[in-house]
């Protein structure tokens, strides 16, 4: 169904929040102020936003190594995110997880994951819990085109279909897995061609169009909540930066033309243009949103900088749950 102005504002706001957070993270990384790996979501904002605006806070998502965008879209807290990226005690994971394991179970964000495909069975497990509790919640699996080639994805997709679980599989097809193009790793063009093999309905969506993603997602979620089982969304999208970090490798694995063509379809520009046409947001209003988010990001960076490092005494905490249980 045609989204309301409020929905459009929400889609726009979440995309801008992702974009600003990621660009700030990229700057910090290039300045050597973030440890570890950093997989930026810039360019793919329409997918996470379109998907998560169609969800409730109780619905769950499982994420990937490229997880910041998913968490921001699910309502993640900038302070805790930035602090986690810096490895501070105030971060989402008390500094123990970092970018690749950032998570917020209270928001139903079941974690970024360092293992490609590793999060897929976990979201399916959450789907089992939702079905069993009959709580009407839905779990969503974000995964890449490359992840669709790994066994864990296949097993979990088939499991979800066999058990008719309330799960939505969202493929972020950005045409590359690290530095290797899709054509080198699969003989199909559309990952959604795999849905039929699980007995799931599947659709292809313009992953640069937040509204299109949102609309397709609303249907998939309704289907899941109605107990009709899982479905598959393939979102055609593109990452604007390198696989990790910002700069592209010395080695060229994507052409400038290709990159520029995709950038012409920047998901935020597209939505702002559309909203302007509809008279819902002029340049000034858009700029205001950008500015507000930017200042939140600045505050988050400050918060993270000012936060204490984890106390070495906590190194061995939380390996096990001590309360309850027999141990």
């Amino acid at each position, binding site marked *: 169904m045609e989204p309301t102005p409020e929905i459009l504002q929400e889609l726009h706001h979440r995309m801008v929040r992702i974009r600003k957070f990621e660009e700030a993270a990229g700057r910090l990384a290039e300045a050597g102020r973030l440890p570890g790996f950093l997989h930026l979501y810039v360019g793919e904002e329409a997918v996470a936003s379109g998907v998560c605006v169609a969800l409730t806070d109780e619905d*769950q998502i*499982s994420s990937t190594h490229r997880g910041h965008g998913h968490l921001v879209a699910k309502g993640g807290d900038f302070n805790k995110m930035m602090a986690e990226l810096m490895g501070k005690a105030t*971060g*989402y*994971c*008390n*500094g*123990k*997880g970092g970018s690749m*394991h950032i*998570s*917020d*179970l209270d928001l139903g964000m*079941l*974690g970024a*994951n*360092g*293992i490609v495909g*590793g999060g*897929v*069975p*976990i*979201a*399916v*497990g*959450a*789907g*089992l*819990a*939702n079905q*069993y*509790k009959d709580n009407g919640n839905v*779990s969503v699996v974000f995964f890449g085109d490359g992840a669709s080639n790994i*066994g*864990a994805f296949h*097993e*979990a997709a*088939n*499991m979800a279909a*066999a*058990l008719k679980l309330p799960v939505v599989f969202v493929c972020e097809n950005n045409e590359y897995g690290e530095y290797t193009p899709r054509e080198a790793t699969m003989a199909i063009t559309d990952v959604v061609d795999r849905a039929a093999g699980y007995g799931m309905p599947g659709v292809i969506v313009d992953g640069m169009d937040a509204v299109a993603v949102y609309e397709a997602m609303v249907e998939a979620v309704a289907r899941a909540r109605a107990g009709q089982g899982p479905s598959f969304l393939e979102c055609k999208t593109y990452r604007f930066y390198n696989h990790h970090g910002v700069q592209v490798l010395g080695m060229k694995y994507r052409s400038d033309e290709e990159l520029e063509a995709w950038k012409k379809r920047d998901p935020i520009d597209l939505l702002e243009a559309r909203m302007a046409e509809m008279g819902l947001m002029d340049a000034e209003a858009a700029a205001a949103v950008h500015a507000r988010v930017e200042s939140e990001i600045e505050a988050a960076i400050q918060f993270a900088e000012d936060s204490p490092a984890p106390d070495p005494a906590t190194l061995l*905490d*939380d*390996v*096990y*749950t001590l*309360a*309850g*249980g*027999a*141990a």
Partner: protein
Amino acid sequence: MTATVETATETRELTYLGAFNEALRQVMREDPDVLVAGEDVGKAGGVFGHFTGIAEEFGDRRCFDTPIAEQAIVGLGTGAAVAGLRPVVDLMFMDFVLVAMDQIANQAAKLKYMFGGKATLPLTITTSGGAGLSAAAQHSQSLEALLCHIPGLKVVMPSTPYDVKGLLTACIRDDNPTVFVSNKRMLGVKGPVPEELYEVPIGSAHTVQSGDDITVIAYGRMVPESVAAAKKLAEEGISCDIIDLRTVQPIDLDAITASARRTNRVVVVHEAVRFGGLGAEIASQITEHAFDYLDAPVGRVAAPFSPVPFSPHLESHYVPDKHRIADGIRETLGRPAPGS
């Protein structure tokens, strides 16, 4: 654990398998969040019979068959646990742990820590290990050493019906990922089992028989084999202190060190391959904590360095038995074999 035994009001004989099934039923009756998933666990009740009648009693929403997909089976349990259930997932043979190793060791075991503690994973993985059935190299392994090396997991390998019921109960009630390993060759073994539900604490060993000359540390099917060996050795005037580890992660260091300090000689016994097996860790910890008390290096009786052979004519020479255990004990005691 005698304490727990005494609290038992009604005790009668059950098989190892029967104790598993009863513990599961009783836990499922008390906690509606416990459900069971795995290959052939539903209608068939499991290929070994662990789950007989569970689907009938609790319905197929609480005990159901899954596709042949060990990674997804474990992940199903992990996700369901994080989302508030208390799942039991079954991996038919312990050898299949290798198929699901990423989901077990990179996901289930690490999630809580990676999330800064903000996750609880009351997941129990049940599986069946051990050799001696001519099941060959991919259906006979004892892979506990791989699991015990992974922080975040707890692993139990009971040797009696009593411990099967108490440890399975403890595993399911535990808020951490636990792995419960049945021994395929002990499923029919009978023993006293209290009717009511009880726990055998994870991490506590059990002294099977007291002795003064040497400490024998074993678990799973190697416990009765060690007892049989000790009986033989008793005739030679050798008195063995036999400790059933019961839990292999964490291990009951106090119990084994105390015995080692008293007997001054120790032999560790397991079915798994010797190189890199749990025996090495146990021997090292005992040596670190009782070095001045030891009159000989800690002995290890285990499988040699090869896959498990199919032919019974070879397998019988592969799996440790009472004879090889007795030899290992004599060797650590520096006693010649009788008639040599």
